[in-house]
């Protein structure tokens, strides 16, 4: 008996399901006041949570949070929470500590929402499953919002747990504990309200159909803006200023939501300073007010129409693969299929493009720090590979599995194992080589700016070795035939874990960098070896790819 069928799994899933629904009970009266049918809300939420938590089976494989993916992400959050608790060693005030933790909570809630907005809030699956059943728009919206809160709450609570425990040890536990818990719930609610309100505004301005088409751009814009600002802060010294602003009490903190929650904790511990009182007032008033505004923005039929809207099918010209990139036959068919689908598949564009866009400002910030602060071209090999293709290509390949049209996979049923491998090899090449023109210019700009032409050999070695490395990794990331599985939100959470992956890859790149320090000739030899490896891998890729579907 596997995990999916075991009674233990059923009990664990049942316990989480019941606990999450129990959290809803206290809100029965306010929800009814807001025109939400509590019994309907509970019934649909229960169905959605079961779908999220149960291991996947059959043709539905891929839907839901998938317990294992969720557990991995929660463990990551727990570790991050432990790391945040180390801050207590610096002897901060309770307000400073709470502010820092809530900043982390808000960030960790905002990113999955930004990266995964479509499936969380505008996915059409529920609308189709509940079609024809008498559920009001308000109840439908309440289902979406409560499910979103359960989803991001389950991610943020493990993060807040270690700081809560260690905070209770460092500060008066009976006052700090409850205030910190309330602050965390409010911080999660505020973040959900901000992100959904932002998208609700987009929905209002653009209308359902245009919003559905523009949401990828909105999501990309939001991710790049947020991460870009963070990186801009890092390279200009603004981050230090930001943290000073967060930690020192001043009226300016009213503009910084994480500081509101620090103020709330401060007041709970006895402070009666007017700034703390004002911050606490904001902490208590802003989340419900913004949630109400978000509900208004998303209300009516607009969200349902956006969920069900079919974007206009734009003709996609068939991209022709140069013979050097994909061999004739199935490999070229796979190349063409994947190129075409990556331009059209909403899920792919939402997931892979957004995650890739997230890496660009991070990579640029890291390059700036490395190249401007340390005058060493060999550092290119330390920084560039990790962020250019090592992180980006696996992300793209990972998302290449999923499609809303996964039922069309029967097309591949008649292919032999060998033919399937050839088809996948074409798809891998389409992603690898297709991403280069978009990704290399931003990443090459900083080294060329910092070191001029003397950076070129390092850049070539970095690019070639990374491409070769990715072709080795490709079989790990693309086991099924491209676009043959149902979308999975939990697996998309892998994009978060991708940040961990980047760290591992940085170590690999660090080894390459250290090698070059040994002898200058290592650069030329490295280039030659990497090019040879790339050539062999390119030619033999199909043989490396497992052909199980």
């Amino acid at each position, binding site marked *: 008996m596997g995990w999916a069928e075991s009674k233990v799994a059923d009990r664990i899933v049942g316990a989480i399901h019941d606990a999450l629904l129990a959290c809803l009970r206290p809100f029965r009266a306010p929800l009814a006041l807001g025109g939400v049918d509590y019994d309907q809300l509970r019934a649909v939420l229960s169905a959605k949570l079961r779908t999220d938590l149960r291991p996947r*089976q059959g043709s539905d494989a891929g839907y839901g949070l998938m317990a294992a993916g969720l557990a991995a992400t929660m463990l990551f959050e727990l570790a991050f929470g432990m790391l945040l608790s180390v801050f207590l060693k610096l002897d901060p005030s309770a307000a400073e500590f709470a502010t820092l933790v809530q900043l982390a909570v808000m960030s960790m809630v905002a990113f999955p929402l930004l990266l995964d907005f479509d499936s969380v809030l505008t996915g059409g699956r529920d609308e189709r*499953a509940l*079609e*024809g*059943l008498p559920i009001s728009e308000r109840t439908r919206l309440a289902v979406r919002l409560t499910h979103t809160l359960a989803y991001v709450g389950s991610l943020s609570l493990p993060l807040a747990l270690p700081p809560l425990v260690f905070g209770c040890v460092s500060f008066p536990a009976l006052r700090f504990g409850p205030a910190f818990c309330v602050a965390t719930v409010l911080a999660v609610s505020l973040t959900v309200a901000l992100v959904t309100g932002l998208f609700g505004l987009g929905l209002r301005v653009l209308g359902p159909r245009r919003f559905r088409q523009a949401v990828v751009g909105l999501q990309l814009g939001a991710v790049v803006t947020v991460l870009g600002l963070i990186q801009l802060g890092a390279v200009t010294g603004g981050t230090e200023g930001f943290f000073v602003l967060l930690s020192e009490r001043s009226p300016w903190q009213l503009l910084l939501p994480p500081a509101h929650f620090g103020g709330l904790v401060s007041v709970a511990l006895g402070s009666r300073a007017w700034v703390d009182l004002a911050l606490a007032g904001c902490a208590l008033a802003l989340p419900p007010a913004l949630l109400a505004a978000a509900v208004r923005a998303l209300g009516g039929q607009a969200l349902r129409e956006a969920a069900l809207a079919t974007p206009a099918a734009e003709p996609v010209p068939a991209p022709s693969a140069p013979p050097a990139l994909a061999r004739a036959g199935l490999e070229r068919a796979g190349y063409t299929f994947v190129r075409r689908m990556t331009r059209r598949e909403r899920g792919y564009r939402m997931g892979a493009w957004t995650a890739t866009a997230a890496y660009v400002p991070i990579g640029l910030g890291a390059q700036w720090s490395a190249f401007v602060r340390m005058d060493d071209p060999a550092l290119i090999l330390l920084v560039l590979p990790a962020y250019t293709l090592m992180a980006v290509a696996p992300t793209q390949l990972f998302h290449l599995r999923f499609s809303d049209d996964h039922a069309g996979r029967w097309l591949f049923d008649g292919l032999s194992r060998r033919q399937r491998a050839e088809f996948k090899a074409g798809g891998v090449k389409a992603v690898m080589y297709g991403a280069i023109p978009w990704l290399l210019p931003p990443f090459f700009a900083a080294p060329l700016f910092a070191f001029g032409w003397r950076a070129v050999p390092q850049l070539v070695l970095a690019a070639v070795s990374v491409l070769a490395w990715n072709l080795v990794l490709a079989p790990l990331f693309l086991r099924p035939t491209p676009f043959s599985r149902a979308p999975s939100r939990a697996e998309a959470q892998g994009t978060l874990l991708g940040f961990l992956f980047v760290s591992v890859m940085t170590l690999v790149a660090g080894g390459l960098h250290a090698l070059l320090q040994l002898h200058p000739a290592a650069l030329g030899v490295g280039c030659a070896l990497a090019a040879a490896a790339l050539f062999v891998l390119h030619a033999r890729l199909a043989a490396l790819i497992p052909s199980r579907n």
Partner: protein
Amino acid sequence: MEPPEETWPPLAEPALVARGLRKAYGSKQVLDGVDLEVRPGEILGYVGPNGAGKTTTVRILCGLLDGFQGDVRVAGVQVALEPLEVQRRIGYVPENAHLYESLTAAEHFELVASLRGLDARVAAERSRNLMDAFGLADRLGARLSSYSKGMRQRVLLTSALLADPPVLFLDEPLSGLDVNSTILVKELLQGLAARGTAVLYCSHVMDVVERTCDRIAVLHQGRIAAQGSFEELSAERHGASLESVFTELTGAGDAAERARRVIDGLG
């Protein structure tokens, strides 16, 4: 949500009426003045070629699509004004089954019962009886992801009948069903109609429509090309079968000639 009626009160006649129904998607006029009427206890067969607008009509009548013109009332309720109230009074089997596939069939029926405000005990008994009749009683505890297409269709039919609604909309309900289930559904529809249920039945299976429906409406290019009992439609065309009537009304032309063109296209 108001508690559901254990037994719905007798419908004011007609159970369903659409007058001058028009709907456009952008510049494309999908429905162009459709008039329909179904009385309690009547089964109206709604047929037409692919893309004629049958599903659009049904979705409007079920309160799932707005932005239409015309007077549409279902179970005495104005669809444009109270779509939710309409949905409380109807059963609907959509053309394509979308289900929460991680749920078991029993959990799915619990969900439907909760959303319709049905008594859980009554709903459980009804779903067990219906699934038993469909030969799926032993599968109630199995996840829907393990169900075949025909089995899912039977789950959808059971869901639609769970509240014993006075008006039923069936969009291709026989899709994927085996012969025995098809016969059962035909008998079931006639039995429901005998109890006063009004049924709008969309299908491409002319044989079933001919035998099951009291009246038939043929939709072509967004308009009702003909409407009446099978006998009336057939008599106007010298005793032709429904298939011949349909072909003539929708102008499909000579099938043998078109088949020859397809084969020629194969080279």
